[in-house]
């Protein structure tokens, strides 16, 4: 994927979240955004997802230049998959119907064919037994895996995930991370915000450390996670990894 930011700025009221961000990354399959809470990583991901409009600057992903216009952004959002922290499955629909809804109503697939595709997709991730359950009957890990299936069912160019495991009980984290890892192995391009440093290390081609309104450091796993010389990055990593024995 190619990501190119020029002078990108975003503020919410008086709070400046991203300030004059310029950056170019080319030829990476997956980007992982890490950094302290409130540092701007979720906002950066939401801008990349076309869910927010920048105040100033431009943002290019692959062949798309994101305009500041809802209609254009909606068309763009159809081309990318987005996964949220709280799974956000629609509670009145079964897992299957949740995945079918965008396929039928946004992508105009034939319902019968879409159904077969979705069942095959669920089968691949061992979720077919949950197809007819409503979200309330599923564990957090199952819900998030269904939500990821929903995001990738239409074969998006890019999958964006905002802290996909933060709301989960620890016992369910690995099943969700495994699924994301599998998608990556299959060639899916990913942008991931996460606090799971071990997982970032596993799947990240490029790590972006986002803090204080900008990308403080970015580079490969070795550069950012192993041998960073930036004191902010070091301080963050030592805090996050304090209780981990690696």
């Amino acid at each position: 994927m190619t990501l190119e930011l020029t002078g990108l700025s975003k503020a919410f009221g008086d709070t400046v979240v991203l300030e004059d961000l310029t950056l170019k990354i080319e030829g990476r399959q997956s980007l992982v955004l890490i950094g302290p809470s409130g540092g701007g990583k979720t906002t950066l991901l939401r801008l990349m997802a076309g869910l927010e409009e920048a105040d100033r600057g431009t943002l290019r992903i692959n062949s798309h230049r994101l305009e500041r216009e809802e209609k254009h952004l909606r068309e763009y959002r159809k081309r990318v998959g987005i996964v949220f922290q709280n799974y956000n499955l629609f509670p009145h629909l079964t897992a299957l119907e949740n995945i079918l809804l965008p396929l039928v109503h946004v992508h105009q697939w034939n319902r019968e064919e879409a159904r077969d595709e979705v069942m095959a997709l669920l089968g691949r991730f061992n979720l077919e037994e949950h197809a007819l359950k409503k979200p309330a009957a599923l564990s957090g890990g199952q819900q998030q895996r269904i939500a990821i299936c929903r995001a990738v069912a239409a074969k998006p160019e890019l999958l964006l995930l905002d802290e996909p495991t933060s709301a989960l009980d620890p016992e369910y984290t690995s099943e969700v991370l495994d699924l994301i890892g599998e998608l990556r192995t299959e060639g899916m391009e990913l942008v991931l915000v996460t606090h799971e440093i071990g997982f970032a290390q596993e799947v990240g081609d490029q790590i972006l450390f986002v803090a204080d309104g900008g990308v403080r450091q970015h580079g490969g796993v070795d550069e950012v996670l192993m041998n960073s010389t930036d004191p902010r990055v070091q301080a963050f990593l030592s805090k996050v990894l304090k209780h981990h024995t690696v």
Partner: protein
Amino acid sequence: MALRSTAARLFLVPRQGEPDRGVYLFNLAAALVLLSLAVFWGIRSLGYELRWESVWKYRANLLRGFQMTILLSLGSLALSVVIGLFFGLAQGSRLIPLKLFARFYIEIIRGSPLLVQILIFFYVIANALGVQNRYTAGIIIMSIFAGAYIAEIIRSGVDSVGKSQRETARAMGLTPAQTYRLVIFPQVLTRVLPPLAGQFASLVKDSSLLSIIAVKEFTMAAREINAATFSTLESYIPLALGYLALTIPLSLLTRKLEARFSYDS
């Protein structure tokens, strides 16, 4: 102390498990006997002699009134849902005048007595608008009244569908109209059914106030019979039973719907 803890146990501590059917029926019978004794004793202490035959010959009037009440209720029910839906959504409109108008309407209607609204509407507004038929006027008044409550029910239903779901719908590329049709309304419908059923029961009872503008509905019929026969209780007891025959099924329906949807989401 002992009394207080007994009272607390009786009223505040929920029962564990359901009583079995026999026990339930026995208690139901006991409660009914208690109720009838209270009514019987109340009438006896008045020294009142019930003379049903004087009222019996007016039964056709009473039945016509009952039918009129059902018609008025059904008409108002349909119209009030349309009004409630419009103002419920208008409250969330980005058009500020529309939003404020909806707010004013709801506050004024909910803040003033129905009786006053009936009088003002019938003698002032309906006259000005040229609505001559008092039955049409009655349905319009009841609908405007109930519509304000239904608007609030619908608004709270729409609000109860969380922001995160709208966000997800947006992320998928659904248009705002699709979001309402596919995501919000199906959930709102199941959540507002119980309060709506309750509102309809109120509508049936409140229609009795239309008798003051001489709409010949159920209550009006009973009042006329009372005036002709001076048999007050014999006129009003069938009236109470008639309203109960309409509202109890609605109340049972409400409970059923509540039970059905309470576990959802």
